[in-house]
């Protein structure tokens, strides 16, 4: 074989190549995002996923091979979830002052997020497994995947729905919240973190520290509350529809 082909065959099967490309794609996408003045519509996750899809489909590389390298990035979701304790701790005072309002908003928001996703998909004729996969779509990936599994969904499809949710929420929240005339960074952050989990938190931290902390708070609380209650709510809702 030609030496270039040999090198490609060797590298394309190694974790190094796909790990490196994941980071490079993200850095390029983030550069575009920064160039745009942090315009929420120039979403770095959407752009990097599209770049990587083009490369993988163009080179006939399987997701399995890709994930061998990318898993090192994916793994960090766990420690990052633990690290959410930091903004939670720092904003504890503000949380305590408004805890009733925030807990009620959390429960309302979670019910609307899951309930409306399942109802819309059901109305449009989605299959039961797809419905189950949609129940936890607004919660951070590790929690969402385990709930999906419990409900008879497809965890990897849930992970994709979680990512699309994060892209949609962090891209559009600004316009929705401006339309609602809500200036408070605490409320805006809380809505972002609840609806769009980690990607909403990342977006919120780029706007302000306070917004980021409230987004982190919403994401952490929703992961905690969802892990406890969402399997029951999901089972009830799915039984009602199917």
């Amino acid at each position, binding site marked *: 074989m030609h030496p270039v082909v040999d090198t490609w065959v060797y590298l394309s099967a190694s974790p190094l190549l796909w790990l490196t490309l994941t980071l490079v794609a993200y850095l390029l996408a983030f550069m575009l995002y920064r160039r745009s003045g942090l315009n929420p519509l120039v979403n770095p996750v959407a752009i*990097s996923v599209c770049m990587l899809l083009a490369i993988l489909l163009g080179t006939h590389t399987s997701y399995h091979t890709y994930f061998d390298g990318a898993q090192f990035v994916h793994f960090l979701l766990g420690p990052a979830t633990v690290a959410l304790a930091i903004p939670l701790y720092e904003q504890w005072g503000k949380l305590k002052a408004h805890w009733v309002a925030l807990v009620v908003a959390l429960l309302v928001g979670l019910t609307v997020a899951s309930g409306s996703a399942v109802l819309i998909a059901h109305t449009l004729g989605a299959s039961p497994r797809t419905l189950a996969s949609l129940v936890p779509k607004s919660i951070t990936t590790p929690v969402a995947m385990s709930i999906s599994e419990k409900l008879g969904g497809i965890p990897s499809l849930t992970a994709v729905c979680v990512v699309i949710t994060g892209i949609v929420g962090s891209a559009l929240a600004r316009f929705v919240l401006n339309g609602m005339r809500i200036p408070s960074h605490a409320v805006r952050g809380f809505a972002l973190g609840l609806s769009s989990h980690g990607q909403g938190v990342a977006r919120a931290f780029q706007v302000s520290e306070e917004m980021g902390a409230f987004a982190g708070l919403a994401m952490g609380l929703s992961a905690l509350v969802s892990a406890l209650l969402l399997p029951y709510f999901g089972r009830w809702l799915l039984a009602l529809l199917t």
Partner: protein
Amino acid sequence: MIEAIATLLIYQLIGETLTFGFGLPIPGPVIGMALLLVTLALSPALLAKIKPTGTTLLSHLSLLFVPAGVGVMVHFARLSEEGFAIVAAVVGSTLLAIVATAATAAFLIRRTDASRAARADARD
């Protein structure tokens, strides 16, 4: 940095151990987060040690979703059948969740602030 990474991993490990050992419904990292929060409340000195690394990790949280997002390529078949329903459900429910959460929080915070102000006025 190493100290911070080790701390985060240790809390995750404790969380996973508890989840697995007791068959808890809550994922390990979430238990780890709750335990770290309690630890920070008990010994605030830990904060300075883990904050720089923790903040770096959180500010690039979106990078961590890229590998799962690329997983969409495994589901092209399902998406070509149910793609419209899935995308409509995800987009619609996300916008509704933003509206519902923000409206509820803003309304209740305004009410508690107003009643606190009223109480403060009554004292004057």
